[in-house]
């Protein structure tokens, strides 16, 4: 008798766990209108803006990536200031470090439990705008007279989907050439004339490279494998493109191939052996080989400028546009602030207030001062007190030619497929044409497969 009761209990436990697996399925099937299904909801979503600010108390959540250092302190302070100015709004902030933030945010948003205001990746705004996961800010912008002209056009352009603005740009970055003026002078080059085109870059690099007696590299003149010059950026400076106007891949276009071949030509001057020895030393440094005086020229993100200022304030260096062949170009990525569609107008309106505050010129000046980042508000980024610095001015000026990765719905991270191609060519001596053709085929397949799902 007792035994029977025990078995019953056990089967109860087992069926319970089986049930729990089913119930998640049921929830999705029976409640399509629930927030859980918001990812597939239609983009009905433009938040109606209330005429007068609602003064009822409201609590909103704001997720960001500032978990340590000056930006964490500034965020705490900015949120305190904001709440003092808007006593009816309480902000619950959550900072998760950059590397884990995306897991947290995408899981929460997929389940419809995202924050009201989220920092997110500017490059992928269209994907969230299309599914209705985020709200258009057009009506808020019009109501409050926010001037979109104050923001870098490339950012506003990227955050516009089907003619509507989704969120506000927070900050961005841009790639530039850094060059060591002292090494230029030592090599007999003019420290005030950085290389402007590929040929000059190559000639200067040859003069600046220093070999030691063991046939190893003491100083590398310029290597496309160092820093943050990606193949697509260099291809853009050659007039190359990876997608045509019809959304078809053009990975193996002659301009792109020429850029990759040029990279290989430069890299082959050093050889695999000397380069891998150099790389293992450089990666052990924990900071850029340019700061360590191991690289005379490097293409890197504007953030390297702040790093030089803290780590090597005495370094005599200059900043220049990326040397180009056909036309100047650079690559930018950035963070946007977005209103997550939580189907709550009051919270969305409060989140907008915070978004407006964080992207205002006064606040963005403070953000630049704390982090050195290239803030999206041009009034702040080009504040006279920053533009007195010729290096900073040079960085900001590059925004004129800088572009984002195209958002391709069939292949949102298409540029991620090009890094391995570049590495195979540069580090393993693979044939540029063969590998670029392979990437082209992959992209064509991705587009074809995507078309079948539509």
């Amino acid at each position, binding site marked *: 008798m007792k035994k029977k009761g025990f078995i019953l209990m*056990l089967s109860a436990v087992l069926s319970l766990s089986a049930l729990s697996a089913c119930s998640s399925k049921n929830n999705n099937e029976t409640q399509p209108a629930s927030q859980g299904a918001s990812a597939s909801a239609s983009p009905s979503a433009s938040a109606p803006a209330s005429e007068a600010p609602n003064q009822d108390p409201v609590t909103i959540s704001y997720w960001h*990536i500032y*978990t340590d250092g000056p930006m964490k302190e500034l965020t705490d302070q900015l949120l305190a200031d904001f709440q003092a100015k808007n006593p009816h709004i309480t902000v619950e902030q959550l900072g998760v470090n950059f590397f884990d933030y995306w897991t947290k945010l995408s899981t929460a948003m997929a389940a419809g439990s995202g924050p009201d205001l989220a920092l997110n990746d500017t490059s992928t705004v269209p994907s969230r705008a299309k599914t209705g996961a985020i709200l258009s800010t057009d009506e808020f912008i019009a109501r409050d007279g926010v001037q979109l002209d104050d923001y870098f056009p490339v950012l506003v352009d990227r955050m516009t989907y089907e003619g509507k603005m989704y969120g506000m740009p927070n900050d961005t970055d841009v790639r530039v050439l850094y060059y060591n003026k002292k090494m230029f002078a030592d090599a007999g080059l003019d420290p005030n004339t950085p290389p402007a085109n590929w040929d000059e870059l190559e000639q200067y690099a040859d003069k600046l490279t220093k070999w030691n007696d063991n046939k190893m590299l003491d100083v590398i003149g310029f290597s496309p494998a160092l820093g943050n010059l990606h193949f697509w950026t260099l291809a853009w400076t050659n007039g190359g493109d990876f997608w045509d106007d019809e959304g078809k891949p053009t990975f193996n276009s002659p301009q792109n191939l020429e850029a990759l071949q040029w990279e290989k030509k430069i890299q082959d001057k050093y050889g695999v052996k000397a380069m891998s020895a150099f790389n293992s030393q450089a990666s052990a440094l924990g900071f850029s080989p340019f700061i360590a005086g191991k690289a005379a020229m490097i293409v890197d993100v504007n953030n390297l400028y702040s790093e030089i200022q803290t780590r090597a304030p005495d370094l005599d260096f200059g900043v220049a546009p990326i040397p180009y062949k056909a036309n100047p170009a650079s690559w930018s990525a950035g963070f946007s602030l977005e209103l997550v569609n939580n189907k709550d107008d009051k919270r969305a309106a409060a989140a907008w207030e915070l978004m407006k505050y964080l992207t205002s010129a006064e606040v963005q000046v403070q953000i630049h001062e704390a982090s050195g980042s290239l803030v999206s508000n041009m009034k702040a980024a080009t504040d006279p007190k920053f533009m007195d610095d010729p290096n900073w001015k040079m960085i900001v000026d590059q925004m004129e030619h800088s572009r984002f990765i195209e958002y391709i719905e069939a292949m949102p991270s298409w540029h991620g497929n090009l890094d391995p191609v570049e590495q195979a060519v540069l580090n393993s001596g693979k044939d540029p044409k063969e590998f670029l053709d392979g990437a082209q085929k992959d992209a064509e397949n991705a587009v074809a497969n995507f078309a079948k799902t539509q």
Partner: protein
Amino acid sequence: MTLKSEGLFHRIVVYTLLLAGSAAFILPLVWLLSTSLKGDTGLFEIPPKWIPEPVHWDNYRKAVESFPFLRYTWNTVLITGLSMIGAILSSSLVAYAFARLRWPGRDVWFVLLLATMMLPGQVTMIPLFILFKELGWVNTYLPLIVPFFFGSAFYIFLMRQFFMTIPKELSEAAKIDGCSEGYIWWRIFMPLSKPALATLGIFTFTLVWNDFQGPLIYLNDPDKFTLMLGLRSFQQQYGTRWNVMMAASLLVMLPTLALFFSFQRYFIEGVTLTGVKG
């Protein structure tokens, strides 16, 4: 004489191997300690220095002050403790049924159970998250603890294999004395299974203590965070405070070490359960 010298030689070989092995395992820990005491500039020195100069004890102060260390420790202890209780009770109970009871479809269920081990966590992440969200459990500890009260395939398998080695005569004798199955599980099998339970306990402890993804996706309120989430806060998009992070890591690791050493004897005891004399 020859026997004795052979024994000596044997011992020298064994101890040399053991020493080399333990050196290999302790080296990362020593490096952890060394890094945790370095200044910001000495981190990436080449050649690397093992003994920092000067010693930066204040890294430990910074580590404890960078996030609410005590609060996060308590949160982590709470989650880990409850998860361990859940894992030990549920898995051993289910394992007892698989090992000792006869019921229809038992083997089919057992294979089904083992099959669940093949499901990668990534596949169930979003469905589980949606399930817990519908239950209103997001931003609570329940999604982190409750699943352990429903057993886990690997632990059940582990306990079942161990229970199978316990002689039938013991439970038969208990039954003759009028003992129920539940009572046999609790009063005979559990006390005899201390080595397996200790193993299960340590597995659960390290799993939950070191779990990062669970707390990351389920907890939204910084006051509810665990130590692992606190540790990651030192890593930023551009740069990491390695020395402070290592200091914090060392502090977070200490309980794991302490637990291992206090349970170590149960692992070794495993040999004593070889059978009934008579």
